[in-house]
């Protein structure tokens, strides 16, 4: 049997991650949570709903752990397995699968506001590098506290430390960056205190500024050291000249061209993060009595656990430790609560990112315990979720109510929720292409980019001032023509804009873009030699979607959400269903809309779904009787068997022709000539194929009806 076609949980585990908890410890953890929940139910007289049947449980588990519904094969092999430990096995396999990483990446992307096209460092495609870095960390299952520490202490170029994307994302806005940090990692909203004392919480503007002081020194433009090296060199050259001559020389055409040349040479090295000692001062209109406007602020943390700066340790590293230590009163509980919500559909504390001093969890004992568990698993989110998936309440059917946010919920089961945008999309992807989890962007393209950047940096930094100056002179000469051309285009552009000649404007802009690329090529090759791959430094480094024969004949657009541009374009399926636009943290929504209904009724995704090679269609064709076919549809889409009643309803939709079996044994009379036999054989084949297709079409209609049920898009 082909290994690839085997359902995940039967595969021998290739990669076994070191599990943090021993088998015994693991059972104790699950048991403790069960006990806390059971005593809560007793105390509050909660009616516990019935357990889900196996099929719907597997559906829920796949959606939560793999980010999509199970395939027909995955579901049927689970149901038919008689192994006693099959549930444990499935949970363990799923949390170690690449599907798990895919959905964890989506979770991170929403949290960190990841954008493939990020404004900071846009010229060198820094967003793509940041996204790549996050994906790598998720793949390596880097613990949450380490990840947080790495993000806030990030420093260097994006290829040296991918985490600098955290600061490039907010380039030029260090104050906003701090309010994002407290919201993401401390569940604390300080953004109001940026301009005045918080009206509903205890934060003062002073406290906000004191906190922001830790990272205010961030500088997101780099390459200054090289620039000053060159500057010094040229200053030496003009030493001894009168200041008038100096001035004259500096404003000469040559000097201008030279400066431009230096700029271009250093362009790939301009974006990154450096923590400086820049001091933060209060705003000019600071209105409180505790300090004067514009006075300097000294850094101080917002919680009681003190920041201790060890010898030789930088301010920002001390702050990173303060933020992520288990002693921080919110860090651990906030992430434990976030993950609890991810699994159960609601946090023990709501909203998850607006904790106050008087915040009380719906089950305080459980929140305390989850915080301890988070520490015991060393902030390993994979291991933490492995525990939660085993909690008894996770197996129960969602209750038929949704308490409003002010009413405490005691977690007798996960709440009913609509699948997230990514979950619906990924489910449709898995119905449309085989081995959907394996179809990925080519990360080599990005790794290749990282290497080119590193080489470029190494080269530039290896050159002494003399050599740099020579190169800059050479560059100024080599780029003279193209610079003239660019200036000329700009002049024409201005004229065209004044004359309001839009066609010309568009053409000239294109031409300018081409010229700029040429210019970049000139400089990159000047520094690195003629063989150097310039597209790695600017743009996305070539095709990140490689042709792969495994998906030959399938649409080139059908990838799991984590492999697409992030966030998806406006109007994309994912955006219609509420994928975050990544402007602010935790920004996805699951609200109904007319465009969603239109998409599910008439969307283009049906093209891929009803492709005759799609997993859904293949299963449908394999099944012979109409009843079997309908069962295939229910199993693939709703992940359950149809009831007798439902089967009858669906059968009634089929025309007589569709239920009649096809006669495959049409005889070709012996007496015909060889030629005629051949022709007739072809005709029969064609007719059979047509009949088969016509029958299948009626099943499309039923599949369409199933996708348009609430049962499909909701997780019960």
């Amino acid at each position, binding site marked *: 049997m082909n290994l690839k076609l085997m359902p995940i949980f039967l595969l021998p585990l290739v990669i076994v991650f070191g599990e943090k908890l021993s088998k015994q410890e693991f059972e104790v953890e699950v048991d403790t949570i069960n006990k806390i929940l059971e005593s809560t139910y007793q105390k509050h007289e909660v009616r516990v709903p019935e357990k889900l049947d196996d099929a719907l449980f597997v559906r829920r588990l796949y959606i939560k752990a793999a980010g999509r519904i199970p395939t027909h094969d995955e579901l049927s092999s689970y149901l038919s397995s008689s192994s006693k430990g099959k549930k444990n096995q499935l949970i363990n396999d799923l949390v170690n699968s690449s599907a798990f990483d895919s959905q964890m990446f989506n979770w991170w992307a929403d949290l960190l506001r990841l954008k493939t096209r990020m404004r900071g460092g846009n010229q060198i495609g820094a967003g793509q590098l940041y996204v790549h870095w996050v994906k790598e960390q998720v793949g390596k299952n880097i613990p949450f506290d380490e990840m947080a520490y790495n993000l806030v202490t990030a420093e260097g170029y994006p290829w040296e430390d991918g985490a600098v994307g955290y600061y490039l994302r907010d380039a030029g806005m260090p104050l906003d960056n701090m309010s994002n940090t407290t919201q993401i990692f401390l569940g604390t909203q300080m953004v109001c205190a*940026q301009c005045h004392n918080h009206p509903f919480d205890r934060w003062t503007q002073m406290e906000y500024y004191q906190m922001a002081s830790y990272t205010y020194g961030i500088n997101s433009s780099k390459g200054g050291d090289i620039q000053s090296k060159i500057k010094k060199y040229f200053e030496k050259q003009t030493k001894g000249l009168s200041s008038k001559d100096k001035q004259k020389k500096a404003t000469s055409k040559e000097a201008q061209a030279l400066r431009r040349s230096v700029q271009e040479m250093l362009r790939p090295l301009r974006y990154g993060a450096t923590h400086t000692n820049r001091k933060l001062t209060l705003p000019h209109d600071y209105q409180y009595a505790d300090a004067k406007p514009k006075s300097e602020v000294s850094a101080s943390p917002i919680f009681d656990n003190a920041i201790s700066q060890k010898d030789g340790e930088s301010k920002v590293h001390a702050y990173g430790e303060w933020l992520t230590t288990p002693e921080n009163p919110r860090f651990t509980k906030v992430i434990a609560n976030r993950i609890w919500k991810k699994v159960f559909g609601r946090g023990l504390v709501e909203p998850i990112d607006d904790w106050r001093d008087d915040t009380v969890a719906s089950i305080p004992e459980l929140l305390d315990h989850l915080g301890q568990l988070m520490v015991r698993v060393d902030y390993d989110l994979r291991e933490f979720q492995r525990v939660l998936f085993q909690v008894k309440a996770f197996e129960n059917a969602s209750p038929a109510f949704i308490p409003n946010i002010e009413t405490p919920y005691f977690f007798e089961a996960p709440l009913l929720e609509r699948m997230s945008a990514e979950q619906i999309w990924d489910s449709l992807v898995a119905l449309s292409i085989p081995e959907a989890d394996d179809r990925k962007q080519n990360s080599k393209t990005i790794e290749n980019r990282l290497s080119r950047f590193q080489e470029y940096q190494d080269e530039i930094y290896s050159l002494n001032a003399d050599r740099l100056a020579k190169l800059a002179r050479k560059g100024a000469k080599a780029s003279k023509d193209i610079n003239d051309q660019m200036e000329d285009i700009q002049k024409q552009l201005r004229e065209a804009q004044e004359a309001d000649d839009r066609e010309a404007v568009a053409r000239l802009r294109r031409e300018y873009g081409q010229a700029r690329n040429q210019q970049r090529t000139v400089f990159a090759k000047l520094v690195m030699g003629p063989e150097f791959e310039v597209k790695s430094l600017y743009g996305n480094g070539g095709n990140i979607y490689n042709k792969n024969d495994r998906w030959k004949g399938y649409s080139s657009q059908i990838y799991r959400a984590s492999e697409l541009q992030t966030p998806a374009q406006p109007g994309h399926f994912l955006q219609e269903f509420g994928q975050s636009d990544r402007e602010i943290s935790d920004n996805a929504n699951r609200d109904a809309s007319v465009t969603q209904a239109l998409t599910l009724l008439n969307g283009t995704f049906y093209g891929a779904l009803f492709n005759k090679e799609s997993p859904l269609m293949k299963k449908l064709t394999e099944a012979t009787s109409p009843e079997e076919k309908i069962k295939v549809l229910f199993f693939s889409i709703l992940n359950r068997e149809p009831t007798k009643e439902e089967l009858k309803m669906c059968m009634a939709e089929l025309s007589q022709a569709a239920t009649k079996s096809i006669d495959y044994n049409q005889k070709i009379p012996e007496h015909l000539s060889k030629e005629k036999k051949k022709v007739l054989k072809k005709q029969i084949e064609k007719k059979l194929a047509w009949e088969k297709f016509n029958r299948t079409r009626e099943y499309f209609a*039923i599949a369409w009806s199933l996708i348009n049920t609430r049962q499909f898009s909701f997780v019960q």
Partner: protein
Amino acid sequence: MNINFSLFSDELNRRRFVSLAAKSFLGVSILPWASHSSLSGAGLGLNRPLNHAPKAKNVIYLYMSGGMTHLDTFDPKSGTETGGPTQTIKTNADGVQLAENLPLLANHADKIAVVRGMTSTKGAHQQGNYFMHTSYAQRSTIVHPSMGAWMTRLDGRFNPTLPGAVVVGGGSRHPLSGFLSTTHQPLAVGNPNEGLKNIKRLWGMTEEKFEQGLDLSQRLDRSFTQKYNLEKVNAYSDMYDDAVRLMKSKDLKAFDLKEESESTRESYGSDNFGQGVLLARRLVERQVRFVEVQLGGWDTHQNNFSRVPERCAILDQALSALLDDLSKRGLLEETLIVLATEFGRTPNINVNDGRDHYPKAFSCMLAGGGIRGGQVWGSTDEEGREVIENKVEIPDFNATIAYTLGLPLDEIIYSPTRRPFTLSDKGQPLTQLI
């Protein structure tokens, strides 16, 4: 007092219903706007003079997302340090001056009212954006409705098959219909050039098959929807009803910009915003009540003086084309045009040649819909730091929008959690603008 109030308010609802029904079923208002003024006369129009006859029927709401600098657009301060290099230009209306970044709009200044005394306390994007859209401070326990949803809730839809409100390019966290039922949810359009996607039935699916298939869906779902009789599940049924109605609408072509001539399309600008504004015009022509179009990129912490002219070029072209187009079509009187943003930007220019968030003083604009053009309301000091005359709070601004439409400012709508809300909180309309 309360009892009286609710009696009145029922009465109001009944009487409003008559005029509303007339408006929406007969397409035009046969009971002229007098019906509104007589209602005001019924004693509830606390904020309205008896003789106020609202002219506006529909709204085109242009939202400058990110915080539009007032100093380089509608409140220029050339010659001062805070004004930066931005120059002031004259317009076709005496006493209205604009920044040089809006040269085309200057020719239409006789149609606009610039509100220079806007002030707010919300200096962060999310909070400021939310406040402008809803008149309420953002809370984590409730989502307030945006103006388009209030409008269809209080005054109904005029076109029975098209949505009552549309938002073009609104992002994933627009407050939309908030706590109001999803039937008031504005339709979100991502890309105006693509119009409404997925509006045609799948290939080979007949209308009969379509209906049958939907019917089968419903029957298969019956036990699920009975068990989970919840708002968020039922919301989808409403959305499906709306979607099917929309698919059958004769006015669907409103979404197809290709119906416009090349020259018209170009006059609005080829970018998404310009095309979105054109789409807005096509929609209000067909009596969609409220169309919002967003233009992003105003968060100019860096390079303010190169980025703002880029933004302005887009805005200037689209807004001028719209004013021109609507007045030629005779629709300017009944269409209120609003330009809003979450806050202004700091008079002090920062080290990155940018401006930071500044809620204390900023500018918005109104035009059409009975607004008296060629005027400036309120002013800031010489440096654009403080409002020194006619301060306007955001709820007041929103109350003004509602006032031009004749919406009842004092009608209380309860959230599902039984909390009382009105459409512009405690805002008072700027009747002087009309």
